[in-house]
């Protein structure tokens, strides 16, 4: 091939790296997870957790604001289609050659388009690091979009759309987003529609790459068998070929509308699947952690949650019932889900609504708060048990602007929450009269949330 990575590597090896910040994270013992900020000679920044336990490296990265919400009208599914094609041939390698190098060297490179961001992940053995970085660079800067690959990936996306058309969870989710987001880009399906996916042209995909993948919206998290000194040149190699600036449309802020109704999508299933949502809370809100603790107690805490206790343990109405806080860049929602046999889904929803009201009006007890805190703080280190978790967390920390010392401070944020905080936030946030619920199945009787 035309370009020699080896030469490039050596050239950058002399580059300086700057250790701008270092934060330690102690988890109860002498061990600590240290997050280093590395800035390459070419000015590319990454956060790094060094871990030499195994000869493995994970690099997670995100192009902020380059997700499916930027798909132009009529070209829905564009970001998603690029995410499926960008690792299907690049430079002078067609798809089979490119994928053959990946697979035979055990390199995993994958991309994903969310509503807000376009993300990627590289996992490699130390032994194959050079090839891995070369493939990553080529995928970002010289994707081919050959006809064969485009039609093949298009067929896979269409197959996925067909499956989603009858999958109860996907049906509920699509209907929910459409219902609460109206005309906003968030209302549209990330994967697009049959029409738009079939209509996407290679030029559309190239437009996306040119406008969306740049150094000014790039966030990188690295974990594994590499030193800060080695990482600098790697960053320049992998990401240095990207243009300086992205040209992304601004996604408008939106207040989702929750009508307080239950919509039913008929499907001949023995069990009805429900999802619901109401207004949420921003990640940056001063009350986020109070809401986080409240949600853990209400429906986030598995067997320890009130919803599981009331719906599953006491009444046997469902295998799983849960709630969670979801955050998009321009909107926040508190969501939940349950699946119950058709003749009892109404009962499940009414029990859940009861818990929603009870939490809103009466809040929680000190014991519940203590238990929630001991779980949320104690379980935090369990996230540090695989490299993929670590690098992903480093991207999230930067994306949400949580600070390089977040791992160190996070449990303090949880511990600072008081009973009054939770009860006040429960009263303000929970809004059982303004919940939009979607039920897929053949529910019996009148449903209300």
């Amino acid at each position, binding site marked *: 091939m035309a370009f020699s990575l080896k030469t490039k590597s050596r050239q950058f090896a002399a580059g300086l790296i700057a250790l701008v910040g270092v934060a330690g994270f102690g*988890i*109860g*013992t002498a*061990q600590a*997870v240290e997050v280093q900020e590395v800035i390459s000679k070419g000015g590319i920044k990454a956060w790094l957790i060094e871990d030499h*336990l195994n*000869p493995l490296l994970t690099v997670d990265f995100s192009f902020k604001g380059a997700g499916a919400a930027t798909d132009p009208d009529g070209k829905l599914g564009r970001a*998603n289609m690029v995410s*499926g094609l960008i690792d299907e041939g690049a430079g002078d390698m067609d798809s*089979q050659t490119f*994928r053959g190098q990946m*697979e035979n060297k055990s390199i995993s490179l994958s*991309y*994903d388009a969310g*509503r807000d961001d376009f993300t990627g992940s590289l996992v490699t053995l130390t032994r194959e690091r050079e090839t891995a970085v070369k493939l990553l660079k080529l995928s970002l800067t010289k994707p081919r979009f050959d006809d064969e690959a485009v039609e*093949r990936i298009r*067929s*896979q996306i269409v*197959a*996925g759309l*067909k*499956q*989603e058309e*009858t999958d*109860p969870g996907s049906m509920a989710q699509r*209907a929910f987003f*459409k219902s609460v987001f109206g005309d906003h880009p968030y209302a549209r399906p990330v994967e697009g529609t*049959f*029409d738009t996916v*079939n209509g996407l042209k290679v030029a559309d995909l190239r437009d996306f790459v040119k406008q969306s993948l740049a150094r000014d919206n790039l966030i990188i998290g690295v974990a594994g068998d590499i030193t800060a000194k080695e990482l600098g040149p790697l960053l320049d190699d992998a990401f240095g070929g990207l243009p300086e600036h992205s040209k992304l449309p601004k996604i408008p802020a939106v207040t989702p509308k929750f009508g307080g*109704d*239950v919509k*039913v999508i008929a499907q001949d*299933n*023995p*069990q009805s*699947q429900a999802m619901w949502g109401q207004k949420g809370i921003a990640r940056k809100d001063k009350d986020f952690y109070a809401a986080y603790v409240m949600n853990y107690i209400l429906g986030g805490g*598995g*067997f*320890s949650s009130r919803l599981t206790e009331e719906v*599953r343990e006491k009444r*046997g*109405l469902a*295998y*799983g019932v*849960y709630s969670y806080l979801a955050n998009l860049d321009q909107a926040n929602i508190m969501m939940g*889900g349950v*699946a119950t*046999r058709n003749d009892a889904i109404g009962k499940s929803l009414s029990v859940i609504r009861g818990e929603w009201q009870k939490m809103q009006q009466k809040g929680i007890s000190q014991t519940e708060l203590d*238990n929630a805190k001991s*779980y949320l*703080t*104690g379980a*935090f280190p*369990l996230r*540090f*048990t*695989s490299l993929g978790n670590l690098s992903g967390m480093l991207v999230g920390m930067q994306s949400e602007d949580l600070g390089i010392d977040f791992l160190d401070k996070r449990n303090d944020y949880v511990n600072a929450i008081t009973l009054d905080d939770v009860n006040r936030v429960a009263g303000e946030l929970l809004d059982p009269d303004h919940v939009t619920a979607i039920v897929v199945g053949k529910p019996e009787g*009148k*449903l209300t949330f």
Partner: protein
Amino acid sequence: MKFLSQRFWHHVPVVLPVLMMVLVLLAASARAAVFNPETTTLSNGMQVVLVENHRAPVVTHMVWYKAGAADEVPGTSGIAHFLEHLMFKGTKDIGPGEFSKIVARNGGQDNAFTTWDYTAYFQNIARDRLGMVMEMEADRMQNLQLTDKVVLPERDVIIEERRMRTDNNPSALLGEQMRNALFMQHPYGRPIIGWLHEMQQLTTQDAMAWYKKWYTPNNAILVVAGDITMAELKPMAEKYYGGIKGHDVPKRVRVKEPTQHAPRKVTLTDARVGQSSMSRYYLAPSYNTEHADEAAPLEVFSEILGSGTTSRLYKTLVVDQKLATTAGSFYDPVAMDLSTFGFYAVPRDGVEMADLEAALDDEIAKTLKEGITQKELDEARQRLLDSAVFARDSLSGAARTLGEALAVGLSVDQVENWPDRINAVTVEQVNDAARAVLDDKRSVTGWLLRPKGAKGPGMPTAPVTGEMETH
């Protein structure tokens, strides 16, 4: 990019309680590795395995029981999995449902899973709480207390679980029918979750009988991975588990499959099918059966034939012939009895299933006739060996691989020697094993179809809101 799967908005923190492990339609290539475990046996016969990993001050603690759905008495299908749920319903010291709450209050996560061959329980928790979870796990190994008051609602829960996993999902329903057709006599043909009409009849007495029969330290394996040494672990294991008095367990008698003479075909046509697909299962040896020496060659064969986007099936059916959107193979040789070797393929729009199946058959016939090449073997072997390195990275992955192997009757050495076995595989062994196993007479082919005249896939669709009714 994700396709053929449900996309969640944001990451949904759904830790659905009490998982049931189902057959995954993916090659389990990362299953074995060199974990360098240490082992010992307690005075009452309980096996102990440790994999040290000092990345974070946490441990995975697992107890595996050598009893699963294939050990059930006919007519009580689902009892192994039901008991797994009921193990969270308390003892005289721990109230119903308290087990998981206590673990959570101590910053831990817990769950359990059941397969045909075993039932396993685990907690991930800070190392200084290991003694606490051992004490609770040892307690429920001997002191489970069940009453109808907690058992009957939980029976409703497992029935909802069945509806969610299987009855609401035509693809899962077809898989259930196919397995039942593949295993004409062996209990592997039974769904782990149980047949609905039998689940509805399961009682507290059935559950206690199952518990008393199989739950004893000499039928259990303790597997710990994480920030602890054997010098620390052994005395704790003796303290909490070593004093439990064991009892004899019955021999696990599994009936054998008779000679099979005819390929079977199962077709499920269901309006809830959005995307048609097909798959085929063949009876295959496991590391425990006759012809176990074919297992490693078959792992290599599956890697070559159907793992990844440069495999033979994907390259031929998807890239070159453009008949399928995706295609691949799967094979998992870790089982007490016979395993399954399988293929799957999803047709592109406008491709008839019969044409896709014919092309699949042609490619398999060609591969069997011509055999694989030395280059393919070398590449596949390297990929499989590399998978062992990735497997080491996860705390729970090491514990699961070792626990599963021991629970189905393999040894730690067999896990640790897996790279050697893979390395020793020859082209001839792969070709011989593939030719022996891919015998249509021992196969079931399944088609998952949309009804004729159903709203055309790929056609413009009405907006989702147009399909809604408001009640």
